[in-house]
């Protein structure tokens, strides 16, 4: 029991470390004055939320668009990643380790360096300044995350269950939907969450390809953070974080409820 207590304490400290910053941000989003050594703000205000909710600057509409955009990116990224991850996870071929690393390159390649070329090509195929252009460009830094994570899952999971399904008469599609997908569930949630976050936070790529036609929430948030207006930065961060968390939690819930039981993997 003593062991359990230690675990609980550590766990709660951990939790606190996670929640504390969010709490501070929440506090700041209402704070007018908070002199240095004071433990609590001296004066509160609603300037930030008033601005956010003011229809003239479209913040909420932009938020909606961003959620939609990142959700689309999430789905497409997952769709592309599953076959790629499966090939990497299950088949053996020379240079596999190298390719598994290379796949991370798009995260590393400082987006700017690549976008030099990308922007030009997007203009030439008419994707610049369009929703789908932004979706495609978001996929670049997102896919490495989902591919790598799902590769791991495939590696550990193997394909014995898929084979079993085939034996029982399932064709490829059925195998995919009834076996592969549900068994991937935990990996899908993680990969999907990360893709959503990476896409939702994309700032530069959206600027470049969206060209101001596609404006996302991080684009309106970032300047406030940079300018050091703590109240505004906090209000936007708050909305940003909670939106993301809410969406990720719904993703988790939906996937879990769709595939019922959790942790059915191990003994």
């Amino acid at each position, binding site marked *: 029991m003593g062991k359990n207590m230690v675990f609980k304490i550590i766990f709660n400290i951990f939790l606190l470390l996670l929640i504390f910053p969010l709490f501070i941000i929440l506090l700041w989003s209402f704070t007018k004055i908070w002199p240095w050594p004071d433990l609590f703000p001296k004066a509160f205000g609603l300037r930030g939320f008033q601005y956010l909710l003011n229809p003239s600057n479209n913040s909420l509409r932009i938020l909606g668009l961003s959620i939609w955009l990142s959700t689309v990116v999430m789905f497409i990224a997952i769709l592309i990643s599953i076959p790629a991850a499966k090939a990497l996870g299950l088949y053996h071929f020379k240079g596999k380790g190298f390719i598994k690393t290379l796949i991370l390159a798009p995260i590393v390649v400082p987006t700017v360096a690549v976008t030099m070329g990308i922007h030009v090509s997007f203009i030439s195929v008419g994707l610049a300044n369009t929703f789908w252009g932004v979706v495609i460009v978001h996929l670049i830094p997102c896919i490495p995350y989902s591919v790598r994570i799902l590769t791991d899952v495939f590696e550990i999971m193997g394909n014995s269950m898929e084979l079993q399904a085939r034996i*029982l008469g*399932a064709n490829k599609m059925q195998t995919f939907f009834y076996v592969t997908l549900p068994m991937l569930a935990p990996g899908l949630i993680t990969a999907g969450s990360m893709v959503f976050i990476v896409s939702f936070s994309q700032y530069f790529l959206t600027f470049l390809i969206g060209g101001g036609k596609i404006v996302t929430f991080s684009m309106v948030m970032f300047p406030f953070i940079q300018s050091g207006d703590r109240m505004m930065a906090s209000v936007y961060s708050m909305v940003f974080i909670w939106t993301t968390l809410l969406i990720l939690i719904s993703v988790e819930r939906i996937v879990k409820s769709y595939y019922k039981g959790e942790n059915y993997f191990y003994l």
Partner: protein
Amino acid sequence: MSQIELRNICKKFENKRILHHVNLLVQEGEMISLLGPSGCGKTTTLKIIAGLMEPDAGDILFNDTSILNIPVEKRGAIIVFQDYLLFPHLTVEENIEFGLKMAKVKKSKRREKVREMIDLVQLEGHEKKYPKELSGGQKQRVAIARALAIEPKVLLLDEPFSNLDTRLREIMREFICDIQRKFKITMILVTHDKEEALMTSSKIAVMLDGEIKQFGTPKEIYERPVSSLVADFFGEKNYVDGEIKEGIFYSIMGSFQTGLHKNGRVRAMIRPEEIEITPKGNIAGIIKNKTYAGEKIYYIIDCNGKRLKCITNGKTFYNIGEKINVYINFDNIVFFER
């Protein structure tokens, strides 16, 4: 409703040959057993038939048509694996229903079939459990039910009863045999239980070291094994080396009249149950060891320095050290040439 033929199947793993020119012909609707020591290649053979592995050489024919290029799900050969491979994300019910669902059977029919299977494998009350919540034997039963639910043409069973208690095992065995007969399923059963093999199958294939050493009816295999290795497969035997001259078998235990007319150095195979302890016996011996096994008792008897294993029914008892006589009818004895 398929005839299965294996032609010269070979398989290597990392340059170690596992299967070596395996030939096997299973008639439509026939049920055969595949026996062999652990690691001899039984599972590998089944996997190759089902299409989970490609053979390095040779061909597999279903009804005289090669199926090597037919995908797994089209072969209609269902395997029940040694390690079950239940879908961890589906309940017992859903696992059993899986094949039917894939075949797009109507829901009401599926329900009915699942109910029926669950009753048959005696898993009422466990329908909603996930595989990880089942005991070993329960998992095994789900695997069997899942395979039978789709009434396959070809059924490959890899030690399907190994984790079941005697009673269940008998029930399941009978039940499978019934279905097999009813639907004329072509079936290969891998088992380590010789009785199971002898009782259920119309033919038995004995596999040793990746080769099929003998393939025949249970009676043939049991009574006329081609080698002592094959014979060993049906329980421990006594082997007595000696020589036959003009029908008489000379050995350390004495000399005995046989029905044979050949000469030469031979090894006599005497089954423990062929040794009868009786005052009328023609060989003298001393009880060296005794093991109680319920309906029967195992004795080890020293006859002239040769230790013989002997099984008797549990009705009469002899004590260790007791001097007894044993009777062996050498007319029925199998001799192998040495």
